[in-house]
């Protein structure tokens, strides 16, 4: 092979490799995107039934209900317009409490209950997850609604 052809070969291999990588990456990216939905959007049926998403809102005062003898817990999230019930089995984050804005990652089970695999509350007592703040604002001003 001449040096020129060798260089071309290297470049071709590199480009092909990058193209394959880019394809795989974008596929993985698309598959693992998680959208955020507010209780209002869930109530309107906009949230997906068969793939995980993030659901956020304020934990309704007095809504936290624990299963005795296990770590199962039910609570209700609100954006001040609609409410969604969440079930979670595990340790809640340090800053989870009633009246706090939180985000739950999970998906609907067969009976239509939102089962969270992870509950996120940020480490700052005054801090509202931005998605939740946005959802509250949207629920308060329905005119400015925009669909994700």
């Amino acid at each position, binding site marked *: 092979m001449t040096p020129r052809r060798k260089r071309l070969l290297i470049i071709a291999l590199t480009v092909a490799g990058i193209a394959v990588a880019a394809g795989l990456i974008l596929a993985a990216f698309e598959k693992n995107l998680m959208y955020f939905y507010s209780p209002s959007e869930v109530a309107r049926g906009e949230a997906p039934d068969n793939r995980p998403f*993030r659901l956020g809102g304020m934990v309704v005062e007095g809504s936290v209900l624990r299963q005795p003898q296990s770590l199962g817990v039910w609570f209700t999230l609100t954006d001040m317009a609609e409410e969604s019930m969440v079930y979670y089995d595990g340790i809640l984050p340090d800053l989870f409490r009633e009246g706090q804005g939180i985000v739950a990652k999970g998906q609907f089970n067969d009976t239509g209950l939102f089962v969270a695999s992870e509950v996120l509350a940020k480490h700052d007592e005054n801090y509202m997850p931005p998605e939740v703040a946005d959802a509250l604002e949207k629920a308060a001003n329905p005119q400015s609604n925009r669909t994700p």
Partner: protein
Amino acid sequence: MIPEIGHFALALALALAIVQSVVPMLGAASGNLTWMALARPAARAQCLFVVVAFIALAWCFIANDFSVTYVAANSNSALPLAYRISAVWGAHEGSLLLWVVILALWTVAVSFFSRGLPPAFIARVLSVMGLISIGFLLFMLFTSNPFLRDLPAAADGSDLNPLLQDPGLIIHPPMLYIGYVGFSVAFSFAIAGLIGGHLDSAWARWARPWTIMAWSFLTCGIALGSWWAYYELGWGGWWFWDPVENASFMPWLAGTALIHSLAATEKRDVFKSWTVLLAIAAFSLSLLGTFLVRSGVLTSVHAFATDPARGVFILIFLGLVIGGALTLYAWRGPRTLGGADFELASRETYLLANSVLLSVATATVLLGTLYPLLLDALGGGKISVGPPYFNAVFIPLMSPLLLLLGIGPAVHWKRDRMARVLALLKIPALGTVVILLAAYAMVEPAGRATAMFGLMLAAWVVCATVNAIVQRCRARQQAWLALITLPASFIGQSVAHIGFAVTVIGVTMVSLYDADKHVRMNVGDQTHVNGYDFTFVSARKVAGPNYDATEARFSVAQDGEPLASLAAQKRFYRVRGMAMTEAGIDARLSRDLYIALGEQLEDGAWSVRISVKPFVRLLWLGALMMALGGVIAASDKRFRRARAAVSAGRSDARQSSTAG
């Protein structure tokens, strides 16, 4: 008075930074040696004033001067002294000051250890570093001044974020920043080289030790951050693919590609344009990382809207640095670059593969980190990209990297015969098989195939690296004596590569065989995880300087034999009203026993997270080995000798086949 001194010192530092960047650059352009010579004293004087400002801010924290807004927001009179000092870099303004201090220290280091470099070149390097400093000083003085007063003074401060009240967090940010900012040296070398048209193997030899040192610090900083998240967040995870983590990982990936590409540029005068691009990329990603983490854009894109000055400044600064560097590259690059030829079977090919794989990895992390921000900023909805994406992408990218990593160091520069290389690699291949057979019995059946794959890659790298060392020694007359006379860069490279393999073993084992259980436990209860019996022995109240805590004691036994006693705390920080978890950990090389308290339930029981994490220590041990390898490599005599050679006025065109 002290805050005003700090403020004034910052303004003076800005003036000196302007002198440091303008005068030597003009001098280098016009050939005026006196103007060029001004770079060194100006850099040192700038450093002095930045350090004065830093000490002034530290003094405000130590003396509890709550009239300073930044101190009042991030400290408290009950905060222990060590944390009052680390609180200096606990938030946005102070961490920028730390950034500038470290930049000034790197600049001074360059000014001292660059005696043999051509005066025009070093004048340009220091000038570019001065430009970066100007950007940061302006940003601080106009939008993020840590010395602003709020009179009348607050009675007491609102305390440091409890998450940051931890020994790990005292040293993690400085380490990380030393790494981030260290890439500014490589960046400045690249810019100076582009301006002066001086980009050759001598240039790469000057840039290498600086870049490797910065990379070592960054490696250390990331490992510390991961270790801290592991024991302080109470989730038992060591890497979350969180944007904050990604922000530090991107410069690391680009930096890793850079140090390898620099090796090829130094040894063989190839990949020059690519190396320059990587130097620009590594530093740009460091800047991006600093701003991503500290500007609040991650908490909310709309943080920019609440403080538009900061956001606009950051975007302009990033645009100037990245855009300016790339424009210069496009303009000057083609004239100064060009490269030597190499065969397909040569070390260059392997280093090229390294660059491609690491660059693609960087791009994937960048996509996963920035795309959600961009989409949100454009009003396209709120999305997040989960760890599955990163895992799905990283495993196929890192696997060929590890495979090639075993081969690369065995291949000669420029031209080699694949048959020779393959013959050489028979022994390590055999060693890998032996190790795998031995490991097969020890690895549990579930997930065995994946585990064996990870272990195979790691074993391959270790065996091939050891084999390369043996081959090197054999080539000498007294094999054992040769071991201590091997060049430091080769030893460092080997240590770092084995460290990478060690990290891979840790990642593989802990990802596959991590046992994690959330249980409800009362005092006296016992639970079993992976053959260990955990007993909740007692719970008692303890009081810290600024928190109240419940401390739970657990005893651990295996087959009836008592093993360890663990104490986990749930702390409640009084001033901020925040709860924090302190995990109880019994650490061994082969496994960690990990207990974190969740919350207290109605009947006095606790929700408890109990984990057994096999080989999780290897993860950080490997990272430390990588960092150590970098330090060893940077200490290579060749880098100093090269400088002496240049100063003696002869260009070093020696073509050595020593490892890079």
